[in-house]
């Protein structure tokens, strides 16, 4: 369902373009010093170090916590939101340690081993939820920290987490200040009308400029300067104040134990042994082991086998009460049964379902093909296993004449795609050809016959080969995003021309302090999916940050472009482009083909066409000579090797007429460009 970010990804080359740029050095440093990721076992591992320090206010070891001790007014649900690497996980670790949430149980070893494998691969798959017990002015409070993934691709997940909360900790790096994702996350919380506790982290850094960041907060978010809590999560400085603020500033959940049981499913996991583990926020009443509950979405009933708190490891309890957050296992066999946003209630006391969430929508699509068709089965099982815990990835079978059988996968965004690819490569050692990402276009059909065929006038086009002809369409639509760019003002000019070049329309521009500018642009998603981020980064020396949110669909002048080799169309290279960009896209495709199709004995015309009109052309000249000058006795072995290799390659070539095209040429054109 959700991914969150482990720091080490940042060092993996694939991730760099999407993650945050500056300060790798610091990342490495912080990794060495503290070693925090969002893994459960990482927290648990810390126990030996901290168990002696600050256990004071907590419960007694393995005993079951009596949750009835925590009426609604002593519960606080909050999450932490931050731009990547602003210190979210470090703060989370501190909070857990200070409240003694890290508990050693017999189960630890197994969990630890299981996750060790994941840890080595450097990926945190799931956001965590942890219940903290905290003493404040002689009262015990149950603080539910609902961790969120850090990137906007997962803003859907963020909003889901937010819906279970009444307050957020908004963390900003005292050195970097407000960044693009800070903005996005702030607005999510703001719109959800949550209490926002601004936290300025990393005040211990040499370059920290806390005052400036406070000014930014005031200017951009209208947050009074004196509300900001200055901390160093790394050193633990002033973290206690954060806990106090959570109790004092975040309102308790509006829920009553006297109501009938009602819970929101806001996340779920799949466990091979126990089935679905659903994370729930209890919004009313109570639930206990053995209760029969019903999923409002499916109408199916289940018996509660186990429930409890997440601290952050599962901590079984007898009951869960209104206002509390925890997990529930009720014999669901498929992640789809624990629909995110679903409402659970007691079979005996039906309630009205909560509004729920819109399902996550795939916004970026890419083809994935095994490098070698003999790896198809292995890749399939790898993809199946990866999608088991991430239902937001859509999987469709696809096949390409050039690349063979594969899949077209839909992702929430670019980072999501990167994460998925990386896991596929790292965890399954799969050599995968990933095609350049495309976006889902829509067409409004005008032909009654086609409308009948499709069942509606609006269709979504994922595969360019299925792009309907202009004549049967009244309008094409393309997905739009609202992008936020934060940058030092010295790069504004360059960035504006980049945006303009990408058909961006400026919506807003604001100086958040005397040097940093925030710009908002409406972009066609298609224009930013491939290399926008890399370019932005390189032309701002890495200082600009970028984030986007979906902004619906807009009518667009879309056309289908064909690529021809000596007059014959190449189906796998059909591309949907905006008319205004057709020439440059066509030209670059022709050039890439020209570079990757070897010269042959005759001339090859590589053309990009729209309808019957040629818009770009490159010529692969025939070579005039191809014979090795010298070949005597001593040269045979080498020469044979070379020729045999060519002969092998020849077998694998695709032919269009008499033009032979090596698979590499398709890969070069279809795959994402390397940086």
């Amino acid at each position, binding site marked *: 369902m959700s991914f969150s970010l482990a720091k080490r990804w940042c060092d993996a080359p694939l991730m760099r373009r999407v993650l945050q740029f500056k300060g790798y050095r610091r990342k490495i440093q912080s990794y060495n010093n503290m070693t925090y990721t969002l893994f459960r076992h990482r927290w648990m591992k810390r126990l030996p170090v901290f168990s002696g320090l600050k256990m004071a206010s907590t419960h007694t070891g393995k005993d079951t916590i009596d949750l009835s001790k925590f009426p609604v007014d002593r519960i606080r649900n909050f999450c932490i939101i931050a731009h990547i690497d602003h210190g979210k996980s470090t703060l989370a670790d501190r909070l857990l340690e200070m409240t003694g949430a890290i508990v050693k149980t017999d189960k630890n070893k197994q969990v630890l081993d299981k996750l060790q494998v994941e840890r080595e691969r450097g990926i945190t798959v799931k956001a965590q939820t942890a219940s903290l017990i905290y003493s404040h002015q002689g009262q015990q409070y149950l603080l539910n920290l609902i961790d969120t993934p850090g990137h906007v691709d997962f803003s859907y997940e963020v909003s889901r987490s937010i819906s279970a909360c009444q307050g957020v900790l908004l963390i900003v790096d005292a050195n970097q200040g407000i960044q693009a994702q800070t903005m996005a996350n702030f607005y999510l919380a703001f719109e959800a009308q949550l209490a926002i506790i601004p936290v300025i982290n990393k005040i211990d850094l040499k370059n920290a400029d806390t005052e400036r960041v406070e000014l930014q907060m005031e200017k951009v978010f209208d947050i009074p300067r004196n509300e900001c809590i200055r901390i160093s999560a790394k050193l633990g400085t002033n973290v206690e104040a954060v806990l106090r603020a959570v109790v004092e500033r975040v309102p308790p959940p509006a829920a009553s134990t006297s109501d009938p049981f009602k819970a929101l499913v806001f996340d779920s996991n799949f466990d091979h042994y126990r089935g679905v583990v659903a994370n729930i926020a209890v919004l009313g009443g109570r639930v206990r082991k053995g209760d029969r509950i019903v999923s409002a979405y499916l109408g199916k009933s289940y018996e509660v086998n186990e429930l409890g708190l997440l601290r952050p490891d599962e901590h079984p309890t007898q009951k869960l009460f209104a206002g509390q957050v925890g997990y529930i296992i009720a014999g669901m066999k498929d992640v789809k049964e624990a629909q995110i946003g679903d409402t659970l209630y007691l079979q005996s006391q039906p309630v009205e379902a909560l509004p729920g969430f819109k399902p996550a929508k795939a916004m970026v699509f890419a083809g994935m093909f095994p490098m070698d068709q003999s790896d198809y089965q292995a890749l399939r099982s790898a993809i199946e296993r990866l999608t088991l815990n991430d239902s937001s990835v859509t999987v469709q079978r696809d096949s390409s004449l050039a690349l063979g059988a594969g899949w077209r996968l839909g992702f929430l965004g670019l980072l999501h795609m990167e994460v998925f690819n990386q896991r596929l490569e790292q965890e399954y050692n799969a050599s995968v050809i990933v095609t350049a990402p495309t976006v889902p276009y829509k067409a409004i059909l005008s032909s009654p016959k086609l409308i009948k065929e499709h069942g509606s006038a609006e269709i979504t086009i994922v595969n360019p080969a299925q792009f309907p002809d202009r004549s049967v369409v009244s309008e094409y639509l393309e997905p739009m995003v609202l992008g936020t760019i934060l940058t030092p003002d010295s790069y504004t000019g360059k960035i504006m021309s980049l945006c303009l070049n990408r058909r961006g329309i400026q919506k807003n521009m604001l100086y958040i302090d005397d040097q940093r500018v925030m710009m908002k642009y409406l972009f066609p998603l298609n224009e930013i999916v491939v290399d926008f981020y890399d370019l932005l980064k390189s032309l701002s020396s890495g200082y600009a940050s970028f984030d986007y949110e979906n902004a619906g669909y807009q009518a667009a002048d879309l056309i289908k472009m064909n690529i021809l080799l000596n007059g014959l169309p190449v189906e796998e290279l059909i591309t949907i482009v905006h008319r205004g960009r057709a020439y440059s896209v066509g030209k670059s495709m022709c050039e890439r083909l020209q570079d990757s199709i070897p010269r042959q004995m005759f001339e090859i015309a590589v053309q990009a066409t729209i309808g019957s009109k040629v818009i770009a052309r490159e010529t692969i000249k025939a070579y005039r000579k191809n014979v090795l000058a010298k070949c005597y006795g001593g040269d*045979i072995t080498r020469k044979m090797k070379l020729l045999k290799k060519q002969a092998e390659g020849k077998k694998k070539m695709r032919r269009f007429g008499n033009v032979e095209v090596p698979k590499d040429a398709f890969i070069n054109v279809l795959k994402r460009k390397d940086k």
Partner: protein
Amino acid sequence: MIQHTLRAGRRAVSPSLRCFSETSGGEIIGEDGFERTGSPRPTKQASLYVHWPYCLRRCSYCNFNKYIPRENNDHIMTECLQRETETLLQLSQVSCVTSVFFGGGTPSLAPHSTIDAVLNTVSRWAYLSDKAEVTLEVNPTLAGKSKLEDYCRAGVNRLSIGVQSLQDEDLKILGRDHSSHQALQTVEEARRLCPGRVSVDVMFGRPKQSVASWENELSELLRVCDDHVSLYQLTLERGTQLFKQVLGGEMTVPAEDVTAEMYQCARRTLHQHGFLQYEVSNFARHKAVSHHNTSYWKGRQYIGVGPGAHGRFVPLGEEGVLREARTQTLEPGAWIREVQQRGHGTRRRIQLGHLELLEEVLVMGMRMTDGINHKHWEMFSPQLGLREVFGTSRDVQELLQSGQLILDDRSLRCSWDGLVFLDSILPTLLVELERQISQRLQRDHHSDGQTKSRTCSPR
């Protein structure tokens, strides 16, 4: 004259010597019979390549196996070349050496006594006709020139002169240690000693060269050369000085299209002067072809002696029915030690399967303008003729139709236009060959396992 008599005398003795050393009597008679009819059994004869690994300096384009010697060990080298020749001749059970080629390195740095000694050894262990071609590569320096007569006295009867260029400036760029004047003098001397059996090597595609300057150079060359010319396009080899210079942008070589034009222009010019192209890079007048090199292209056996030398022959032994690809140890010091210890410095032996052998026969044979005639092919593939292998393929048909390839009653060969694309044609042929052979194998396998094979598969 004296030398010839000497050689003849030597030979009168040595074959019989060898005869006695050979065990099975019946074969000897058979051999003689073959020799007389001019078609000895292919495994009973081979050509011999002898590698002299030393050079005085490194040419900027050369990545061959050569060494700048630190001290004079000509004597040891000579002994070892003799010793390895002896060992490999015995191992191959070759009774007739059809030609000898002294290559390098710079074999014209070797003392003439070395040539003499090696040839003596050959004659001691196999039949070496006095008509057999014995070629020596010559570096056209003054020192080289002065030794030519001695070499010829030792038995060399063909000289291949590394002229490379007639432009002194270019010779400097190439790192050659001679001038064009010295080269011309050497050619003259060589022609005096071996009239009609002198070859000149020239190189095109050199840095700064233009088509026009190449044309001029060629006509100048044609005025002085004998009946054989080898043309090589300069290829940039990794690890050479020139490679680095071109990579670093200090030097540029002519573009692909320009070198193609140079090649075509040379072919035309040489043709006009009566030089027939008989192989991709080789041209001869008055039938003065290199027999030694031709035997490579015809897929015949050869024995390689000396550091890094390659060989292709069927060695003596239980499994001795298959031809082996053999490579000698590269580094002279190591090679010498090995030869001293075990009589030879063979570092690598790879058995060639039936398909692999045919592949080599195909790749080498197609380099000749005559291509591969049906009889030539049949010697190696008695069961599957040229037409059966190549006649049905659609891809081959396309090549035939486009006129680049010819398959007729005579042979499979490239046309004049097709020869320049040989390296594009070969993969198609190789794919087809592999397919046909594997199909054939499957069919045989299915029909039954008992018949076939052994006797038919040539070596």
